[in-house]
């Protein structure tokens, strides 16, 4: 039977020779484990006489402390050695392609619509939505477009009955009247997105089914200047602070005065280039001051309140934003297209 000091000597030699952490663990079990000689020795202390017990205890403790200190030191050294070697032992090819998650995309029109809404909501507008199958009253009559009026030719319409009083809305403007009816009292600041339908031949810049968004503001003392300012704020928020807008007079029955509005070309800054067709401006949409008859038809007193409305095709905005040159791509839903823009 060895003395504690002899055991410690053997243990320290074994520890010094240990090559890795597994071996060190075996050494720990051998010398300090429950079944080891040293620990076994401690169980027999009880049978020793008192004076012998103190000496044996001291020897035991010295041996045990020496071994465990050596184990700790060695474990630290081995761990440091292992970690210092990671670059060599565990290197991977970091240029290997990442593994994409299965995730899909949002449709580009949803994204663009949300961007538009975000800008307008920040100005205190809220979204109103309404039916796509409309009555003649809301789509035409109430908007100052009487039957037989030549302006109706501008909006060739899908009908559901021979009396032509049930139809697919040709614009989001019926919601002007419905919003006035629902909210009743100005101030009214709403934005109206939605699907619209016109009996047009389909080509890269025309669709029979498309999406519009329009903004309507009705309040005291609303002016053409406010209309210009609001569109400018919108254009700069969406496209950048260096953009300009202009309004050009035109005619719509539901606004007076009426305008088209253009955005300065982002490629040439308004000097004229190929992408804007040379005049420096890109057509975006239509706008104007809400016609007094329209306010009256929505139950608003035109003597007290005035308003403006402006709108455009969401596809048009998406085309300008993403350099898309064919509107039909938005509805074809080719995943290769959606994944580029989603």
């Amino acid at each position: 039977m060895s003395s504690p000091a002899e055991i410690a000597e053997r243990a320290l030699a074994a520890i010094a020779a240990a090559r890795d952490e597994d071996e060190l663990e075996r050494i720990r079990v051998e010398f300090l484990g429950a079944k080891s000689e040293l620990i076994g020795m401690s169980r027999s202390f009880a049978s020793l006489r008192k004076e012998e017990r103190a000496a044996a205890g001291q020897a035991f403790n010295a041996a045990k402390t020496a071994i465990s200190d050596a184990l700790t030191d060695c474990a630290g050294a081995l761990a440091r050695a292992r970690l210092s070697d990671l670059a060599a032992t565990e290197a991977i090819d970091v240029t290997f392609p990442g593994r994409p998650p299965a995730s899909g995309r949002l449709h580009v029109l949803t994204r663009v619509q949300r961007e538009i809404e975000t800008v307008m909501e920040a100005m205190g507008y809220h979204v109103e939505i309404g039916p796509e199958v409309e009555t003649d009253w809301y789509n035409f009559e109430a908007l100052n477009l009487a039957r037989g009026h030549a302006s109706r030719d501008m909006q060739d319409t899908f009908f559901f009955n021979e009396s032509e009083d049930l139809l697919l809305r040709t614009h989001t403007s019926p919601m002007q009247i419905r919003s006035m009816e629902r909210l009743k009292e100005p101030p009214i600041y709403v934005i109206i997105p939605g699907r619209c339908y016109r009996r047009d031949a389909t080509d890269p810049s025309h669709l029979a089914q498309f999406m519009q968004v329009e903004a309507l503001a009705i309040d005291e003392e609303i002016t053409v200047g406010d209309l210009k300012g609001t569109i400018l704020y919108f254009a700069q928020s969406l496209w950048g602070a260096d953009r300009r807008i202009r309004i050009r007079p035109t005619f719509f029955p539901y606004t007076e005065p009426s305008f088209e509005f253009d955005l300065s070309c982002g490629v040439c800054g308004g000097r004229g280039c190929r992408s804007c067709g040379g005049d420096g401006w890109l057509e975006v949409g239509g706008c104007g001051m809400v016609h007094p008859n329209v306010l009256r038809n929505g139950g608003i007193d035109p003597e007290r309140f005035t308003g403006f409305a402006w709108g455009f095709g969401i596809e048009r905005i998406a085309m300008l934003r993403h350099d898309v040159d064919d509107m039909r791509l938005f509805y074809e839903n080719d995943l290769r297209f959606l994944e580029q823009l989603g």
Partner: protein
Amino acid sequence: MKVSYEWLCDLAGVHDITPQQAADVLTMAGWNVEETVLLDLSQLLVGRVISQQPHPSSRKPLWVHQVDLGDHTRQIIAGVDNARPGTLVPVALPEMTVPDGTLVRDGKIAGVEARGMLCSEAELLISDDHHRILVLDQGTPGQHLDEVVPSDAVFEVEVTPNRPDCLGHLGLARELAAALGRSLGRDFMPPFTGGVEPPGTDLINVEIEAPELCRRYIGAPITGVKVGPSPLWLRRRLFAAGVRPISNVVDITNYVALEYGQPLHAFDLAKIGGRRIVVRRARAGEMLLCLDGEIRSLTPDMLVIADAERPVALAGIIGGADSAVTGQTMDLLLEAANFEGVNIRSTSRTLRLRTESSSRFEKAISPETALAGARRAAGLLAELAEGNVHVGWADAYPRPQEPIRVRFRPEQVDAVLGAHVPLQEMEAILKRLEFQVRVQDDGEWDLLSPVFRQDVSIPEDVAEEVGRIYGYEKVPPTLPGSRRTSWHPATPSQERRLDPLRYALTGPGFTEVVTPALTSGALLDRLGVGDRAMQVINPVADDQDALRTTLLPSLLRVAAHNRSYGRQIVSVFEIARVYLRRPEQPDSQPDEPLRLGVVRAGLNGPEEGRAGFLDMKGALDRALDALAPVEVSYERATATLFHPGRCARVLVCGRPVGFLGELHPSVVDAFDLEGRAVGLELELEPVLAVDLPRRGLPLARLPAVNRDLGVVVAEAVEAAALLRTIQGAGGELLESATAFDEYRGSQVPEGCKSVAFTMTFRSPERTLTDAEVDGRLEAIKGALAQEHQATFRT
């Protein structure tokens, strides 16, 4: 409308602006110039032909000319021989591009030097005649051609339907001048030039039988005309405006129509039976051989111009062939009339015949323009066709147009514009547009419209007139809103509330699509979902004649499209409305419920179909939870479009909202899709209506005990039923239980399956002992055995 810059500027008395400047000014005044084609003749020269010889060696007939250009002579070859010695001709020099785009080359033709080009009218874009060299009637050799034949530019101008007075060059010239701060300096009403007896009323009798459709009819006899070609200036202007010259008489009526916007018609007076014009509704069964060679059947809703016996023209749309002017015509009846626009439009639509004339009458031209146009045409017929203009024209005008007055305060204009327009400037603008302004004692302005304008009737209209000439670029941009005392609280939009659901669906790989709502009614019928479809009565195409009643066919079409490009598995979703006719009120607006549709297509065989089903269920659970912590459950169901054995009804908080399942193989086939497809379609509004708060519950701190159990039951017993039993027997200690595997095979009896559940037991107060958990498990097994005759796998 095609507009000649040269004609426009001549009428406006404006000679100091370029075509581009004119186009910009018009555009910003409300006359959008969509396109400009330049006809620049300034680089060409006038030459005099000295000699003309046939080409010595060419097989094609060519002629070699020596042409005097003032300071030198050049040799030029042409393919036609009408440039005889002594004639004046337009000469283009080498390296020039002439207006039709031809580049003039310097070189040899068939071995003979050719140092320029003699131009035809077609090459100069002043007519389509390319059979001869243009022979000039004035000019000197070496002079710039545009001193003899003016340069021009053709604008494509968009004339808005409220401004029929600008359907001619004169109206636009007034606008151009006004926008440049000048007056037109030309009276709208030309002087009356009739001086020949007998009075026109002796030669023709005019009667309006349908005054509701004809406001005015002027019949002016012009006798002794000499029909022949028009002079170059007139032909050139007509051609620039898009009208082919025919003969002086026809050209003059067209010219005046293009100048005043007033359509005119010339009859051969000799062919008007009974020397009588009756403006009446057509009689049933009447026919008319029209100028375009078509015979048209007329109905009583159509207005005709008739002589004593029969129709001679379809009023305002097209003339009759039998009464047309020919080379032999001596005496004319010049018609200048005003017809009711809505009726013209409806006849024109019925006959599918839209003409220069009908498109103008549709827009409610002022009846005063008829007289102006007739006088202008009579003057030109005298000047260019030697016609005799008679005194005393027939002019049926039962209800003369009332003058239109507007009273407004100038501040109202400022209030609309948001800018102050100085009073003098406002008045000057209105006067340039030929309004008469009277300032009243009370400060109101009384505005009288010129006779050709009927569109200015309220103060807002006046603001528009002032604004567009004043210039909207001078209106400073502002943002609306002052201190508000009332408001409508903001609510998030329905669309935005659905965004978490959208994102939750993109996670497991579904891409959002947006598909058309108009689809094929026949397809919906074939699929058995056409019952409540709204049918469009005037579709543009057969496959777009009905509004969809379900989203799934649209998604399957997208899947098929993408499969054709090589995608194996296509996973897509759409949030959109469907349109459901209300059976009890078919003529009212339909229901337009908002739906979610999801499809995953391209799955291979029944096993992948089952896996796809479970994946979709998991995706839906997660997506609905993204909206609100709703309780979603499923029960076996059958539904149109779905596989009869693989379809579940989806219930949200106990309320059925739609179906999820594998799509019926025959439906998948109908879209030429291979393999299996799973899908779901459900109503979103009831889900959005669920108002469940998300609560932060206390988290369990004590350890849980997990147990798995294999439950062997008959095939027909469903997992949901087993789960209900487990939950019932598990008591409070059973925190959760879920089925995670299904097994059939040698380990279980024929006709049975083993469903594996994993269960978590936990108490909020203490750590559970094995004995407690075993006790609960025994209770669960007992209940399963009793209720479902279950046995258990260990």
